[in-house]
C-alpha cells in the first residue's frame, strides 16, 4: 500500500513535465506527421491522404541520375556545413573547456570566464549577423586592412556571402554550446587520476588521449548533439551569411511554409527530423550518455 502511494507520488511529481512534454512536443510532432501526408491547394490543406509532399520533394532524384536532385544537393550541402561547424566548434570548445577546467585554478575566475563565453548572446541574432557586413564586406575592415598593408590588391569576395562566412558565423554562435557540457564533464574528472597518469610515466598527450578525452566523452557527445541539431535546422544564419544563395534543409521548409504549402513543409520537416535522429542515434551508439552521466 505504502509502495503504491510512493509510486503514485513519483508520477505526480513527474506529471507537470510530462504534461508539458506531451502537449507542446509530442502532440505537435504528431500533427506535423499527420499533416505531412495530406493534400493541399493554393490556400488550404485538404485532409485527404496524399504523399504529394514527399514525392514532390524527391522529384527528379531517379530521373536526373547521375547528377543529384535538389533535395540531395541541399542535404549534402547542409551536412557539409554541419560537419565543418561541428569539427571547428569541437576543437575550439574542447580547448576552451580544457583551459577553464585545468588551467584556471580559482572557482570565481572559472565562473567569470565561462560567463564571458556568453557575450555573443548578449545581442540579438539578427544584429550579430548584420554586424559581420562592415567587417567582412567588400569595403569592410578586413579587406581595407589587408589592402592597407599591401597583402592584396583586389578585395577578397569570398569573405562574405560564402560558405566561409556561414561557417564562421555558426562557429561564433555555437561554440558556447560545446564549451559548457565539455567543461562540465572535465570538472568532474578526479584530479588524482591525472596525477596517477603522470606518475605512471605518461606524457601530456598520452594523458589527454587516454584519460581526459575518454572521461570527457559524455560532454563531447552532448555538445555535439546541441550543435548538430541546431545547425541542421538553421535557416536564418545560413540565409543571412550566405546571402540567401546557399541552400539548407531549413530554408526549403521556410520557402514551402511561406507559399502556404503546409503539407509539403511538414513532409520536409519529417525528413529533416529523420535525418537528424539518424545522426544522433549514431552518436549515442558511440557513447551511452545515460550510463556515463
Amino acid at each position, binding site marked *: 500500500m505504502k509502495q503504491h502511494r510512493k509510486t503514485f507520488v513519483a508520477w505526480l511529481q513527474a506529471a507537470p513535465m510530462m504534461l508539458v512534454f506531451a502537449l507542446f512536443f509530442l502532440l505537435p510532432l504528431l500533427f506535423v506527421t499527420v499533416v505531412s501526408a495530406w493534400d493541399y491547394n*493554393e490556400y*488550404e490543406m485538404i485532409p485527404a491522404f496524399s504523399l504529394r509532399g514527399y514525392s514532390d520533394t524527391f522529384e527528379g532524384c531517379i530521373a536526373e541520375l547521375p547528377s543529384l536532385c535538389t533535395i540531395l544537393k*541541399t542535404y549534402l550541402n547542409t551536412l557539409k556545413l554541419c560537419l565543418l561547424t561541428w569539427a571547428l566548434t569541437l576543437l575550439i570548445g574542447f580547448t576552451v573547456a580544457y583551459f577553464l577546467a585545468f588551467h584556471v585554478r580559482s572557482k570565481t575566475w572559472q565562473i567569470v570566464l565561462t560567463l564571458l563565453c556568453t557575450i555573443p548572446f548578449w545581442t540579438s541574432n539578427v544584429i550579430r549577423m548584420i554586424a559581420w557586413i562592415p567587417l567582412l564586406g*567588400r*569595403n569592410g575592415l578586413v579587406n581595407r586592412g589587408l589592402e592597407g598593408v599591401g597583402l592584396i590588391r583586389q578585395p577578397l569576395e569570398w569573405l562574405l*556571402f560564402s560558405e566561409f562566412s556561414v561557417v564562421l558565423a555558426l562557429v561564433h554562435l555555437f561554440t558556447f554550446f560545446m564549451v559548457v557540457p565539455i567543461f562540465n564533464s572535465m570538472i568532474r574528472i578526479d584530479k588524482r587520476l591525472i596525477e596517477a597518469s603522470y606518475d605512471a610515466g605518461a606524457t601530456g598527450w598520452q594523458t589527454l588521449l587516454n584519460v581526459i578525452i575518454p572521461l570527457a566523452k559524455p560532454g563531447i557527445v552532448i555538445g555535439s548533439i546541441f550543435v548538430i541539431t541546431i545547425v541542421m535546422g538553421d535557416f536564418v544564419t545560413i540565409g543571412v551569411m550566405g*546571402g*540567401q544563395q546557399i541552400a539548407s534543409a531549413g530554408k526549403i521548409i521556410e520557402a514551402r511554409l511561406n507559399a502556404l504549402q503546409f503539407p509539403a513543409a511538414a513532409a520536409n520537416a519529417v525528413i529533416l527530423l529523420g535525418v537528424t535522429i539518424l545522426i544522433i542515434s549514431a552518436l549515442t551508439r558511440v557513447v551511452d550518455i545515460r550510463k556515463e552521466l
Partner: protein
Amino acid sequence: MTKSSKLNRGVSRRAVLKGAAGAVGLAAGSGAITGFPYVYSADPKVLRYLGTAVNEGDEISKKCLEDTGIKIEYITATTDDVTKRVITQPNSFDVLDTEYFSLKKLVPSGNIFALDAKKIKEFDNITPVFTKGQLPNGKKIGDQGTAPWKVLYLEGPNSKTFSKTPTEFVTLIPTVYNADTLGIRPDLIKRPISSWTELLNPEFKGKASILNIPSIGIMDAAMVVEATGQHTYTDKGNMTKAEIDLTMKIMTEAKKAGQFRAFWKDFNESVNLMASGETVIQSMWSPAVTKVRSMGIPCIFQPLKEGYRSWASGFCVSKAVSGPKLDWAYEFVNWYLSGWAGAYLNRQGYYSAVLSTAKANMTADEWGYWMEGKAAVSDIKAPDGTVLEKAGAKRDGGSYDDRMGAVACWNAVMDENDYMVRKWNEFIAA
C-alpha cells in the same frame, strides 16, 4: 491522516473549478457570449489592423484617433505571415492591409468580407488605375499578373468568385501602390542604365542582387529574360511550366557564373547591400532607395525602357467582423481615403488611391514634385520633416502618368505557383 484530507479538499476544489471552466467553455461554444462586449461598450472604438510594417505608421494611427475616435491596434507581420494568419486565424484581426495578388489565396478561403461599394464615400473617385486599368487620362496600362481590376469585385456578397464586370461587392479597397524597378548606384556604375538586361550584365558580376520572395523575384527575373529577347511571355504573372523552367534556367546560369552578390528578403537587407556597396544594381523598393539616399549615398530608382513591375495594397475586412465594429471599419476606410493619409503616403514616394483628396492636403510644390514630375521649388521634406531632396530636384521616373503609365506587369500568384516555388528552391540550391 491530515495529509489525505488536504488532498481530498484539493481535489474537490479542482472539481469545482473544472465545472466552472466547463460551463464557461460551453457558453462560449454555444455563442452565448459573442457580441456581448459590444452591447455594453463604453470602451473606445478599437480596430485590430493586420499588415506589414511598411504601412503601419504611428502618425497615421494618431491622426486617425484624433479625427474619428477609432483606436488602431497594429499587428505586424511579414507579407507571407500576414497571408498565413488570414487563412489560419481569421478571428485575430478586424482590418487587413494586404496586396491584391494575395486575394487569389485569401478570397477562396472564405475569410474575407465583401465590402459594399456604396458605403465607401470616395469609391467613384478612386483612380481608374484600379477600376478600369487605365490612367486618369485614359491611357491603358499593363495588365499582366494579378492586376487589381481582375480581382476587385466579387459576384455576390458571399461569393468566392471574382467578377469580370463591376459589382457593388468589393474585395479590397485600394490605398497605396507604386511602380517598382531596379535601384542603382550611379557613383559606382558611372554610365547610364536603361534596360532590365543590365541586371545580368557580366560587367556587374558579383555586384547584382534580386529579391528572394519567389512570387515577386520571378517577376523581376521575367522582366530581365524578356528584355534580353530570349522569350516573350504571354503573361509574366501566369507562366506555363515551360516558361518557369526557361526563366529559372537563365537565372541559374547567372547564379552559377557568380552574377549575384546576395539575395535579399527584407527591406533593411536591401538598404544595407546597396549602402555598403556590396551591390551596385538590384531589385529594390522605393522607400529603400529613399533611405539609402538619406544616408548621403547616391542611389537612383532607375526607370527602364521595358517598364515597371507594379504592386498595390489596400484594406480588406475579416468575415468575422460584424455589428458596430463593421461600421467603424467602414468609417476607418473612409477616413483613410479622405485625404490626410493619402498625402502622407504620397510624400513617401508611394501613390494614394484617391488623388483628388490627397492633392487638397499637399502644397502645390509637393504635388508638383511627387506627382507631376516637376522640379521642386523649395526643399522636399519627408512626413517627419527630414529633407529628402533639395530645391531643383526632380523625381526619378518623372510624373505619375509617366511612371504608372509604363507599368508592364503586376505582382502575381500564378496558377503554377506550387511548381514555381519548387523551381525557386532548386535555383537557390544550384
